[in-house]
């Protein structure tokens, strides 16, 4: 019988996340799994091997696990990036941030000219951008007149970084039937001329123009090229397992994802959650049970994502007293308590994992209450139900999570991108400093992950770790010194921590015997580079199930 091939990689340093052996110099891989990590002479005992020294000057970590992202990050790169900050695309190109509205317009004009000259699109093909964040441009609002400078014959539309707002030109408004007097909707501000300014806030207003500016539903669903782009981004960021949170997972999308993910050179394991929407709790759990059986090594299915409330910056999150700092009315429930309780109960009964989006602290309270009641009916010891975002949780809520066996996946990237707005407008200074209380969660002992919510903020676990370690805002304010965590804790959180919330910590998240050979391959050592620079660690690529993926080849 032929002996399976063994490869032993040597590295400058291997940070294993295995508490029994935190560091090593070599890791042996066979059949895509780890035989062991340690000194070469120990590993040689597994029999004949090939020594691979290409990582001799690299640092290996367990492949990063992104516990809250959306595959649509890959889809969005088909549009023009117009964000305030530099962002790397799936090809590794860094798109510089746009410093002003004028710069945004100039980039759109250049893209418009290109559409014209190459003759790719007849006039009328929309021009779409994404990542816009006008809060960095002071009081200056983007208007349809700004975008009319790009084109008056082609619909032009740009999605904001938050994903909750579009800015469009007059042509797009006209196509959507909105360039008229008498519009009375909080999401569609009108100018002095009585006509909409071109800013469209919230899903209702956005749906009307989305189809005219290239953001139609069909374009965003079941997007195979987008999935492939997303995977390339994962390699560039050292990610070997990423969540897709959430997806309605119709049969055709599942078939496409299974086919693509199981290709021999597809580099990232995807865990796609079934969104709880438009079905009863029973139907959702039944669907999840069916999906669970369709899981493959590289595509994990059978978990459910639930939305309890909206977003803080959109003022649709449910806050407890005293509510929003600027006095805005309380947000919206996206799901009432009764179906939540029922969903939890049925999912516990079937062993289905449920992750719940809660942003506001009242939404978190409600989710805790619902799970507490569901657990009385259906006691379960190791459910790992996870609160996603859970940005405003206080220490009492973390203690309840601990008591109920919950996990949390916090969103420290918010501090950098919107921390200043949270401080000044949405929740005010004290709660802005408490937001995403990573240190409290760890000290209470709640199993914790941290996330990017890509494409809302860029995919990049090391950047997310940097945010949790430094809590720096875009203007340089440190938002909540006491809630900073150490680099070692942050690194464990983006590997084993996230894996635990996905019930995958027995398979991935650390470099030790029996686990998947998933590594992030780093040029710099995140434990040496200094807490201020964790985000600057250079990423060479990944090893996923023993397959080597240099970022440079993506």
């Amino acid at each position, binding site marked *: 019988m032929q002996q399976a091939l063994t490869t032993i990689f040597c590295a400058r340093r291997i940070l294993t996340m295995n508490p029994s052996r935190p560091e090593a110099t070599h890791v042996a891989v066979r059949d895509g799994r780890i035989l062991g990590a340690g000194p070469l002479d120990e590993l040689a005992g597994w029999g004949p091997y090939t020594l691979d020294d290409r990582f001799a000057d690299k640092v290996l970590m367990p492949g990063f696990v992104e516990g809250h992202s959306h595959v649509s990050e890959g889809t969005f790169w088909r549009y023009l990036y117009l964000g305030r900050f530099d962002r790397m695309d799936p090809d590794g190109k860094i798109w510089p941030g746009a410093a002003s509205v004028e710069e945004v317009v100039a980039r759109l004009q250049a893209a418009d000219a290109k559409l014209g000259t190459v003759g790719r699109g007849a006039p009328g093909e929309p021009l779409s951008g994404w990542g816009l964040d006008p809060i960095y441009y002071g009081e200056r609002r983007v208007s349809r007149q700004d975008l009319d400078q790009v084109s008056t014959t082609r619909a032009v539309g740009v999605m904001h970084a938050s994903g909750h707002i579009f800015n469009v030109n007059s042509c797009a408004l006209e196509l959507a*039937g*909105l360039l*008229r007097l008498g*519009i*009375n*909707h*909080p*999401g*569609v501000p009108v100018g002095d001329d009585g006509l909409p300014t071109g800013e469209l806030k919230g*899903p*209702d*207003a956005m*749906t*009307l123009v989305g*189809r005219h500016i290239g953001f139609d*539903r069909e374009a965003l669903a079941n997007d195979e090229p987008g999935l492939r782009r997303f995977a390339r981004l994962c390699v560039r960021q050292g990610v070997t397992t990423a969540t897709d949170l959430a997806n309605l997972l119709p049969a055709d999308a599942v078939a496409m994802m299974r086919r693509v993910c199981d290709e021999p050179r597809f580099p990232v394991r995807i865990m796609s959650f079934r969104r709880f*929407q*438009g*079905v*009863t709790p029973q*139907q959702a759990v039944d669907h999840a049970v069916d999906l669970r059986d369709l899981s493959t090594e590289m595509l994990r299915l059978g978990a459910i994502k639930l939305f309890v409330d909206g977003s803080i910056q959109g003022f649709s999150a*449910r806050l407890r007293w005293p509510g929003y700092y600027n006095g805005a*009315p*309380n947000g*919206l*429930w*996206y*799901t*009432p*308590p*009764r*179906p939540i309780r029922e969903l939890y109960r049925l999912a516990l009964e079937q062993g289905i994992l449920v992750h719940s989006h809660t942003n506001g602290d*009242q939404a978190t*309270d*409600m989710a805790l209450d619902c799970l507490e009641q569901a657990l009385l009916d259906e006691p379960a010891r190791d459910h790992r139900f996870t609160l996603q975002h859970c940005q405003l949780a206080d220490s009492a809520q973390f203690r309840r999570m601990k008591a109920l066996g919950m996990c949390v996946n916090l969103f420290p990237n918010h501090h950098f991108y919107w921390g200043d707005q949270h401080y000044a407008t949405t929740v005010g200074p004290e709660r802005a400093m408490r937001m995403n209380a990573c240190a409290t969660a760890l000290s209470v002992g709640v199993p914790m992950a941290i996330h990017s919510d890509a494409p809302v903020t860029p995919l990049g676990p090391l950047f997310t770790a940097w945010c949790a370690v430094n809590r720096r805002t875009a203007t340089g304010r440190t938002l909540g010194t006491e809630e900073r965590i150490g680099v070692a804790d942050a690194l464990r959180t983006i590997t084993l921590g996230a894996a635990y919330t996905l019930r995958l910590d027995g398979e991935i998240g650390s470099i030790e015997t029996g686990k998947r050979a998933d590594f992030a391959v780093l040029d710099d050592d995140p434990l040496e580079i200094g807490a201020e620079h964790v985000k600057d660690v250079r990423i060479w690529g990944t090893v996923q199930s023993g397959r080597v993926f240099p970022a440079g080849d993506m």
Partner: protein
Amino acid sequence: MIGGFLGAGKTTLVNHLLRGAGGLRIAVLVNDFGDLPIDRDLIVGSDGDTLEISGGCVCCSYGSDLMEALLELPRRRPGIDRVLIETSGVALPGMVASAVGLLEAYALDGIVVLADAETVRTQAADVYLGDTITRQLAAADLVILNRCDLVAAEARDETVRWAEGQAPNGRIVPAERAAVPAELMLGLRTHVGVSATGILRTPGGVAASVLYESLEFTLDRAVDVDQVARALAAPEAGVLRAKGCLQDTDGRLAMLQIVGRRFERAEAPVGATPGTLVVLGLRGQLDRACVEHALEER
């Protein structure tokens, strides 16, 4: 727009209306098909997110995307006369209404919010849902206070007064088993020769004519339509709904619709008979003298 918290009777009401559609082709848009929203005997077919209903009506689920469903509806189902939007239990009908206002193809008729007379005040005190319930009521043109048969008269009156406070722009309509005249919800007709009793089909129980009263007026002269509208929409008139085709003093022929305190005037369609007005209200509350006064020359 039909709003209200879970269990308030929205589904029952929708089924009543489908039974009492009287030839109108109604499209019912529901949040989801979770618990089957339509009585089985009314369903004549189903296809994915659409249920075919006897009488040319249809029921579609819109999941999270009502706007998409409304945009698609005219293409998918031409010739629909009325759209009933059943909002989810935690949706704010006022917000949904303003979203519908963005669509040129639709005009909002009214916002009806159902409340359970027995439990609404407890719900309104709920730490999580209280403000959702009160914001729902605050947006209502008509509040159907359902399950009044389950509460004592005194408690009911107290709840009516409470609801009046919560719904300053709404009229309170006590009901049992969500039984209200179809015309209250689907609109009155002025173009058919109606009689006061003939139009009141109240499915599912007590004869409507016992509880409701309708009045019909014929006018052979022009009136100030805006002034008439304001007078009829004022609480003392007791008008829950009105529809009229009136000759305005400015020379135009106006179609006037009133639901609670909401009124809207539009160009009358070609061929409309001028000088007709039908009003509907609760018996004992609809004030004929007040309505007549509103129509008087001044």
